[in-house]
């Protein structure tokens, strides 16, 4: 299912956080949103997972206007791995993951056998099966990230949005998570800080600066030394990855502009 941001604008307290952002995520593709801190990436994502109402513009999934759907209906289509992963009470890993089924269940309705099996498979796949009965408060940051991703996956969405999912993850789990995204068949919109991981994992990239989309296209087209200099204010050389050919950035520490 396609995801489309159309002239999305968010104004809060007189400040424009996102200005007229239009971006397409074609069905089954992974699109990365990159940009400096405060450029509006997370704000744009929040409109997609319905934590925020856009001031103007819309978010479309397929033919439907997401901003007009009941929350529960959009939660069956769009799942999110957000930054507020903080859990305040000591739920077990299994319980948190099972809450991903909430939009599909009524009230306190119990999970079906199929749903419990789904939860187990996803936890096993994300390497947290052995933590099923652990309290989430006892987990490391990286383990908790994977719990949150598992919760989003058991939601069985067609569209997955992730806000800096690789935070706290060690290298292996970063690579694992991003390759899982591209192999998932889901339509994915992901905010990433690491431009090299973004270049390797995403089919297309959108670059945000001060709330505006300043570039979009394939990683090769977008990640030029010129753009990285203009948007991020750093000097970088771009070299092709020796195995995959993806553009990779090499930063020069002395020459920050």
């Amino acid at each position: 299912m396609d995801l489309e941001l159309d002239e999305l604008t968010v104004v809060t307290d007189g400040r424009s956080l996102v200005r007229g952002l239009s971006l397409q995520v074609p069905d089954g593709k992974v699109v990365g949103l990159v940009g400096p801190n405060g450029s509006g990436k997370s704000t744009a994502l929040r409109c997609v997972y319905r934590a925020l109402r856009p001031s103007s513009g819309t978010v479309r999934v397929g033919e439907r206007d997401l901003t007009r759907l009941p929350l529960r209906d959009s939660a069956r289509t769009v799942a999110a791995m957000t930054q507020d992963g903080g859990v305040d009470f000591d739920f077990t890993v299994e319980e948190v993951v099972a809450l991903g089924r909430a939009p599909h269940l009524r009230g306190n309705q119990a999970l079906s056998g199929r749903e419990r099996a789904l939860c187990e498979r996803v936890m096993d796949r994300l390497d947290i099966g052995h933590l099923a009965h652990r309290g989430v408060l006892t987990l490391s940051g990286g383990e908790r990230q994977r719990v949150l991703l598992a919760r989003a996956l058991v939601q069985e969405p067609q569209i997955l949005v992730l806000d800096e999912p690789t935070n706290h993850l060690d290298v292996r789990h970063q690579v694992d998570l991003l390759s899982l995204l591209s192999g998932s068949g889901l339509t994915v919109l992901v905010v990433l800080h690491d431009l090299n991981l973004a270049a390797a994992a995403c089919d297309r990239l959108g670059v945000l600066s001060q709330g505006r989309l300043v570039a979009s296209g394939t990683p090769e087209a977008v990640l030029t030394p010129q753009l990285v200099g203009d948007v991020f204010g750093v000097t970088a050389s771009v070299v092709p990855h020796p195995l995959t050919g993806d553009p990779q950035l090499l930063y020069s520490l002395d020459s920050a502009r």
Partner: protein
Amino acid sequence: MNMISIDEVVTPRPEAAVRGRSASLKALLLGCTALVALLLVSVVVAIGLGPAVVTPGETARHLWAALSGGRIAPDEVTTYQIVWQIRTPRVLLAALVGAGLSAVGVAIQAMVRNALADPFVLGVSSGASVGAVGVTVTGGLAVLGVHAVSVGAFAGALVASLLVYAASSRRGALSPLRLVLTGVALSLGFQAVMSLIVYFVPDGEATSTVLYWTMGSFGAATWGALPVVCVVVLAGLAVLYRYGRALDVLSLGDETAASLGFDPDRHRKVLLMLVSLVTGVMVAVSGAIAFVGLVMPHLVRMVAGATHARLLAVAPLVGAIFMVWVDLAARTLVAPRELPLGVITALVGVPVFIALMRRRGYTFGRR
């Protein structure tokens, strides 16, 4: 690399899953049945104990006579009256309020995402105290007779909740932190008003009303007020239970709640109305009994886990049992005087709580 796809993920392994689920459900049912039995025994024992001791067998016989319209020998009338007219409403009220405070504590802690929250954090109890003291001092609501003070307290509680709601909501959003801070600030304001009244109206009755409301007592329990409390508390418990999974989701944070299809602000508004109503009714008949609504949720969470549907089934039963025994201690330990309930809940609860916490390495929901 082993790729995931949602279709591939859905190969069912139902046997194991179903077995795990029914085992935990069975444990819950077993636990609740045991707690209900313990509650019934506690109620009967507590009704029998007091200045005139009635054995549990006798108590049960009198209760049965009252419920079934049976006959009582003439020489037993005094005992019957003590059992049925004086002690039964009091013990039942204790059970109801204990259950209600525990459940409301569970709900409030989840909805404001704060492990330190209790039913009174939103200013309900101090609002009720002002209402009660105001009625006592001014003699207002005199047409309501003996219920005037309770009605005044309830009105005060509702006014307090409305003020907290109005002051903390902003553009239709009800942030948990703002809710708690507003509640705390308004509580302090109400306490100042109360002190002012007591200061300028130095009559003994106002002072004792303040004491009564800040420490809590079931001394005024009668059959008259019980039906209202019973209906409100039991209905409140039933509705809160239905919000079990919503509370789970709310306690994951507003962003996550929205992404899971739950409007956090709308849920908080409904829950705020509900818990204010239930708390207001309880405070109006028993005063603000500290500690139960704060600690029972934590104690039960240590044993039963954090899932709210389970908590909201177990915590009211535990709270009811606890409160029945606390009230028994309050009226028998230094008879004929009565200890304030708040003193006993604190004296018993604090050490137990600290001991449990240290033993289990309980995190209070945070690291």
